[in-house]
Structure formats: C-alpha cells, structure tokens
C-alpha cells in the first residue's frame, strides 16, 4: 500500500523546488541530489545484481531454459507430462479424442501433434501484462508442457511473440474459457506489441461450453477445478488461488523470491493437464470453427 502522507510530503518538496526554480529562472534541479534524504526507507541494495541472481535461480527450476523463438530469447519451462502425471494417461485420452473427432469430421485435425492447449496466467485483467503463457502439445511423440514466462516487464513482448509463433505453427487450439479470456487477452497484448496475430486462422475449441452442456446439473459449478475433481479425482493441495497470481508477478520482479513463482507454474501446469483430460472426456467432435476476427 502506498504511504500517501509520505507521498504528499515528497510531492510538496517537488512543489517547493518548482517554486524555487521558477524564482531563479534556472533549470529544474536533479532529483537525485535529494533522493537519499527523501527516500530513506527504499532499499539501498544493488537491485541489478539481485535481478541477475533471481534470473539465474530460475534456471535451476526443473525443465527451465532460455530458448530462442523467432530469433529472440524467451525464458521457458518445459516438462514431460507423463513424468509429471504418470498415472494420468493424459496423452492417451487426448489422442483418443482427436481420433474420434477426425472420424466424424473431415476438417478436424488428424493427429495429436497438430493440436495445442493454451492457458494464460496474467498480472490482472485487461490492461495488465501477460505473466505465464502455458502450452500443452505433443512433440517427438511425447506430450509436454511448455511455459513461457515474463521474468521482468520488458520481456513480455518476447513471450507474446513466441506464443503467437507457436499458434501459427499449431492453429488447432483447445482452451477452457479461452473464447472469453485467453484468446482476446493474447490478441490485445499482440496489438500492444504490434505483433501480427490472426485470430481468424485459429481453429479454436473452447471446452467450457460443451462442458456446461454435458455436465449441467451434475456438479455444483463448471469451474475447471470442480470438473477435474469430479471427473478425474484430482485434488489440488496448497494450490495458489488465481487472484493472488498478479501480486506474485510484481513481487518476483521486485524481490526475486522464487517460491511463489514455482506455485504459479505448478498451478498453470495443472490447469493445462486438466484441460487435456477434459478434452478426452468430452465425447464431441473436435470440429474447428474459424474464429471470426
């Protein structure tokens, strides 16, 4: 919380300084001269070194790497789904769903390798930046999660560009509530960074709507957490609540403290896997509908 009375006092100092300068006809003085006197409580430790240390520690996370997407470095965490969730048979379920859909619809993707599941963790609602862009897809026969993370404010563009690039390569998209949130959010961040993102080229299946249709009346609500528990017996222990994730974003950039970031990455992976399992459960055609731009 901001200390308003201190801010007011400090602003008063700027007011006075402005008057002095107006009276002297001189150029506005440098703030740095007075900074020490005014901001006694701000951290005096070396912020740049702390940031470097935090980014290095991030690389200790399992699966962490700095990858290159379209010629740009992006921090990513890559995990194998069968390692994460050996008894889940996630890949199997998803493959079966794709086959069912392909059998009923000639336009649907033929193989799991053509499909990607997307889930975004953000620093808040509209207007805020993208924190973690999480994707679930099959590569070299193995199902993996790939999480691209904005480690500091200036890296968001790279994460957005990388995500858009991946969706260009795999336009068969599966999400949970992606129609109202994830895809529009990505669209906006793409517009912000002047990245060309053609929503219309996506074949997007949002599982929320068929889930509502199929499970209405059976469960107390249609939240992903509820569905995963009721349908797959998954119980998340100590899961970070979604509304705390934005604060973690800013805190990590300010302090470099890793634990909560770990929690966010874990939460995000669980969301991806549950969406994949849900895809397997819903006995529907994975028919694509071109998303209108």
């Amino acid at each position, binding site marked *: 919380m901001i200390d308003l009375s201190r801010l007011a006092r400090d602003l008063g100092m700027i007011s006075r300084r402005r008057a002095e300068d107006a009276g002297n006809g001189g150029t506005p003085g440098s703030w740095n001269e007075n900074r020490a006197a005014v*901001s006694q409580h701000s951290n005096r430790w070396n912020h740049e070194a702390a940031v470097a240390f935090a980014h290095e520690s991030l690389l200790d996370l399992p699966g962490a790497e700095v990858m290159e997407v379209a010629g740009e470095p992006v921090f990513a965490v890559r995990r194998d789904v069968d390692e994460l969730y050996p008894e889940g048979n996630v890949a199997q379920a998803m493959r079966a769903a794709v086959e069912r859909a392909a059998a009923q619809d000639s336009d649907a993707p033929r193989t799991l390798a053509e499909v990607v599941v997307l889930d975004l963790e953000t620093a808040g609602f509209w207007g805020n930046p993208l924190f973690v862009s999480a994707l679930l897809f099959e590569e070299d026969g193995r199902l993996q999660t790939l999480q691209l993370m904005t480690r500091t404010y200036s890296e968001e563009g790279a994460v957005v560009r990388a995500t858009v690039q991946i969706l260009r390569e795999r336009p068969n998209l599966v999400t949970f509530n992606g129609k109202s949130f994830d895809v529009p959010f990505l669209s906006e961040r793409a517009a912000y960074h002047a990245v060309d993102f053609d929503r219309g080229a996506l074949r997007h299946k949002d599982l929320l709507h068929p889930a509502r249709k199929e499970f209405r009346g059976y469960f107390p609500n249609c939240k992903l957490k509820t569905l995963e528990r009721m349908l797959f017996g998954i119980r998340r222990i100590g899961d970070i609540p979604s509304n705390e994730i934005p604060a973690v974003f800013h805190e990590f950039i300010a302090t470099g403290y890793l634990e909560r970031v770990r929690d966010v990455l874990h939460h995000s992976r669980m969301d991806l896997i549950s969406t994949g399992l849900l895809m397997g459960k819903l006995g529907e055609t994975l028919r694509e509908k071109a998303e209108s731009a």
Partner: protein
Amino acid sequence: MDAARFLEKLRVGVGREGQILHVEEIAAREARFAKLDPPLPPPLRTVLQGLEICDLYSHQARCIDESRAGNHVTVVTSTASGKTLAYTLPVLEAVLADPKATALLLYPTKALAQDQLRGLLRMAELSAPLADCLHTGTYDGDTPQHTRRKLRDEGNVLLTNPDMLHSGILPYHTKWSRVLANLKFVVVDEMHAYRGIFGSNVANVLRRLRRACRHYGADPQFFLCSATIANPRELGERLIGAPVALIDEDGSPRGAKKFALWNPPFVDTGRMDRRSSNVEAHVLLTELVKERVQSICFSRARVTAELIHRYTQEALTREKPELARRVRAYRGGYLPKERREIEKALFSGDLLAVSSTNALELGIDIGSLDASVMVGFPSTVASLWQQAGRAGRGREESLAIFIAYNDPIDQYLMRHPEYLFAQSPESAVIDPENPFILSAHLQCAAFELPLTDGDAELFGPLTSDLTHLLEDHGRMRRVDGKSYWANTDFPARQSSLRHASQDTYTIVEMAADVGAGSAYRPQTGPDFKPPAKGDAKVIGNVDAISALELLYPEAVYLHDGETFVVRHLDLEGKTAYVERREVDYYTTPVLEHFVLLRGTRETGEYAGTPIGFGDVTVTWFTAFFKKIQFFSADSIGFGNLNLPPQEIETTSMWIGLTDEMRARLKQRGKNPIDGLSGLRNLLISVIPLFAMCDRADIGGVIDSKNLGKATVFLYDRFPGGLGFVEHAFRRPEEIFRACWELVRECPCATGCPSCVGLPVLRPAQHQDPDVGGAWPIPDKEAARMILEALLSAELVF
C-alpha cells in the same frame, strides 16, 4: 416575447422600488455566410438541405477550412451559433472519405453527449450514403456491455466524456487499438468547462490520449469549442499541449435581447440589509410564468435552486394554482431518470419554468426559452453569458435578468455594468503540472504504457522527478530504461477528474416510522439501525467534501422542493439516511478552521507591510450549524456536531500589520482583528476576478499563532496549490486597489454584506449565500484604513 412591455410592467409592478438599475439593449445581428472551396461532398450537401440550411456561417466555413488544412482548431462562439456543425462536418467528411477513419467527440457530461448523438443520428437519417458508413454511439457508464463491444469493434464516431476516457478507455487502449490507430479527429466541446482542477486533470487525460495514439501510429487533429473567454487560444494550447488556430468571429444571427440588472431593495434605514435575492427571484419567476413566458432561473447553490422553486410553487398555488405544477427544480445529484424527465418536459413546453443550478448551463438542447433569470453572479462572466444565452434561440426577442446578491462582487457589478457588457471576460486558468495532479496521471500513463524519457515532452519538466518519486514509493519500477507499472492497483480508479476528493455519499430516504429514533432525536453511532432494503430508497448523491457540510445529522436537506431531515450520517459507508419532514426552517453549517505555516518561500514588503508566500496546512471542520427560518431568514437555533476534520497541504499568501498600523487603528478605536477580517473578506471576493478562479477555490483565515501577530492567510483550496493566491501575491497593487474601490464606493455606513461583509470562512458551494445577514459584519472603516496604508494613499473620507 415582448421584453420591453414586460419590463415596463415590472417597473410599475414588483420592480417599483427601483430594482432595475440598468437595461442593456443587445441588438439583433444579421448572419454572415461563406462558401467552401472545395465544396462539401454530396452526402453532406444532402444533409444540409434536409436541415434546411442553404449556406454555412462564416465561422463554420473557416473551421472547416482550418481542419482541412490539418491544423488543430479552437473556435469561440456563443450559444446557438451552429458550432456543432462546425466540427461535425469535418468529422463526417473524413469518415465519408475513408471508411476506416475514426473520431472521438468529448463532452463534459453524459447528458450532453447523448444529446449530441441525437443530432448526429438525425443527420444520418437525411442521407443514405452517410447512414451506411456512420457507426456511432455514446460510450459511457450507461452503455450496455454488448453495445460497448460493438462500438469498439465497429464504431467510427464515438461520443464520450473525459471521465470515461480517463478510466474506461485509456487504461484499456489495447481493446481500442483499431479506433486509436485510425483516429483522425478529437472534438473537445465546451472547452471553457475545463478549467481549475477539472481542466488541469483533463489536460493530462488528453496528453495520455495523444500518447496512446502515438503508440499505434496516429496523431489526431483536435477541435476545441468554447464559450467566450479572454484566453481561448491559451486554454486550447494548454489543454492539448500543441499550437491551435483560433476562430473567434461569430457569423450566426441572433435576435434582440434585453439584459436587465436587478438589485434587491434595502429593507432597513441603515442601508445594510437588502431583501432576499431568492425572494426577488421567485417573484420574477412567478410573473414570468403567469405571463406564460418559458423561463429558466439559475442559482449558484443547490439549496437556493430548491428554495426558489419552492417559493415559486407556493406563490403560484396562491395566485394561479393551475400553473403551479409547471415549475420544477433541476440540479446535479438527481438520479438520471429524473433529469431526463425534466429535460423532456422543457422541450415539449409542458414545463414553463425551471429553477436550476449550473447543471443546465451547458448546451443541452432543451428548446427555446424566452427568459433567463440569474440569481447571483455565477463566478465568471463567461458563465453569466452562457446562462443568459439559454434564452432566445432563433431570432425571437428575449430577456435576461441578473439579480444581485448582497455580496461584494455582485454589488460591484451592479455599479459597473461595463465590466459585463464592454470588457471581455476573464481567462481560464489550468495547471496541468501541479505535482499532485500530474503524479496521479503519470501513474495512469505508466499503467497504459511504460514511461520513457520522451514523455517529459508531453507532461512537462517535472515528469522525471515525479517518476523517480513514484518509483521510490513502489508505484512503478524502472526496467531497461523504462518505468513500468509495478503493482496490482488500477490507478485510474484511484483518482477523480473533478474533485479533490473522489468519493460520493449516497442519500437514502427512509420512512418516518422505520428504525429507532426519529428526525427530532436522531441517532448516530452504534444505536442507529440502517433500514431494510424495502424500507429505503436512494434519492441522490453528493461529493464527499460537501457531504460533511450538507448532510450532517439533523441537517435539513432540500430535494425537489421537499424538506428532509438527516437522521444519520454513516461516514464509513458514505451514506446519509434522511427522512421526509415538513419543517419551516433550513440549516446552514458553521465552519471552523486552522492554519499551520510549514515553510516560507518568498517574503516581501508592500508599502512597509510584510507580505509572504509559502506552504501551509489548513484544517477545517463543520463545528455546528444554525437553523434559519424560511422567508424571514431569522436564526432560530443551533445544533452541535461531532464530525471529523478535513486537512490539506497547500500554498498561501499572507499579509500582516505593521506595529504602526496597529497603533493607528487602536488610536481611532478600531479593532485590528476586525480590520483584518474585513480585508480578508474583500480579498476573497476580489482575487477570483484577477486570479481567474472560483470563489470556492480560495479561502482565508486570520491567525496570530504562526507569526506571533495577527495575520491574514489566503490559500488555494487544493493540495499543492493551483497558483491562485500566488498570482495575487505577485500583483498586490491591482488587488488592493480593487478592494479599496469596493469598500470606498459602497453606500453603507459602517459595513455591509456587499463590501466587507459575508465573513463566511469557507464559501461552501451548498451554503445559501443569502444567509449573510445572520453573521456579524466587520468594521468597514478599519478595513479601509488598512487598505489605504497598503496603497499609501492619503486618508480620504
């Protein structure tokens, strides 16, 4: 209407005590036309034909020429001069030429925007090609969600207000990328409304808009329309931060107008008390209604508008009962539904008279009115002319009557009509770089796009210091040379554009028999039980600062002519619970305040008298309240209060007395404090004319503790100061001279409300200025002696 005949009737009737001091004959004016080269595209020519417009007025054509040339334009015109066409035509021309082009039209209020939308839709009906390419609508708090999405995705001419732009559009500029990337025009209507705090904030919002457009590669042209003020070019340029072309000749025709100055007569032989201006107003309004002249009456305060409405209704009920229901009251703070009803009834002619505050001052199309009555000077000449301009649309003759309060400036204007009719009005002043204002907008800007060094060009030289300060406070964080928003707050919602305080209090009416306690034994604190939902309804709202001065427990609150008594004020829940009661008095708050001098910036001596300028902390609170009877204006009692104080840190100018001066006063048997009180009152009245602010923007207090002797402290009523009293500090000669003229010319013997009187410490906008008579009046001569010493003039009697 036949204004001359009506005035004659007044002169021998209710005006027979010589209230009519002056009648200015404003001649009719012929139209001046001009042609456009190249001419307008065919669809727009069709529209003009449909509107029965053959030619454009000269100023309309010039506006179109300038905007075609790619310049920012500021146009100054009077009411009903066709300024809407002046900006609508360039906008529609652009949209017709390029289907992707977009335009943003800004109005100070939602109501105005909705009114203008009607006009645009009417135009579209007249031309099929125009209707095909125009996708327009208002985008404001009332717009439903699906319409908002449609406007963002497809709209090309969008009408909105600065508040929506500030917190509903700019923070979400990514949703608006299409509109902003193609933005060709931004229209700022009623530019003169953007002064003081509001203007300083809006200037920053417009800079943020330009910045967001720049991000998407656009650089829109601005089109600003203003009523007559002395510095339209300066205001336009300060608002947008870029040079403008000025068009200030008005080619529109107007009918003749008679502008009468009406001074209520004295009611005592001592010539200190005048009859209540509210009483005079209702008498005039009653006469107008009986004559079936559709009229509007403007007052400064809500309380007054309500009172005048009430008095008029009572008079009509006695004299012409069938007309009594054709009078209504109108002000902000009513719920939107009620406001719309009144506007419609005016337009249809069902309503004959409206008693309004300045809420109706802006150009809402309510049809032709024939007469405008103005009670009390509305703090600027521009406002007065706007109010007068509400009467007389078209070429019909119209009447304007300005009724003076027993108040220094009003009486001064009564004696100096040339100030109203010859001199050009005052200048509008804004200070977008006030650190408190700017820092709020830098935070909003950082949320929208990270701050860079280049932003100092837009926001001014303080940008760098303020950005570092905000970073130190954890609001933003610098990464790779840019300052990013670094927390989960939403800054646009943490600041308001219009007030120093951004909250509003809700007023809830409860039935008389509900809950414990009653209007006569109001319960506060833990004993009060708020009513259940079904027993209560919301009847309006006020801003938080005024709430403590208007809705204190046991306050009589007037709403739509009815009296309510406040039973409970919930400070935390920001709600006032009121109960309808028939009472024959109203209440007025008494404010106390204190000043603490924190630091001196400059000192000087004026004719040997020390004056200074620096920073102070002012604390004030509503100490108790008086009960004042209707009509007689007698004080019938007091009530105690226990409300929390309010505090601001601001700038102040002070004047002390030399020992010699004090001795001389004592020699003549005068009390120095009394003299300083008079001086303070004069300064508070006069400074607004020169420093170009509202009277409510400055305050004054007499204090001996800070400097060890009695001193008058005048201060800006806004944190950090807005430059008003500073302005006065830098030109003392002018100010003291005007004060001296005022006190010298006043015909009273020892002091009266129209010179040194009205010792209202803080003229809260809701206080009835007519109540001045209930207060002790300082000694006129003591004040005059002080001023003469300051001006080193000889003591002349």
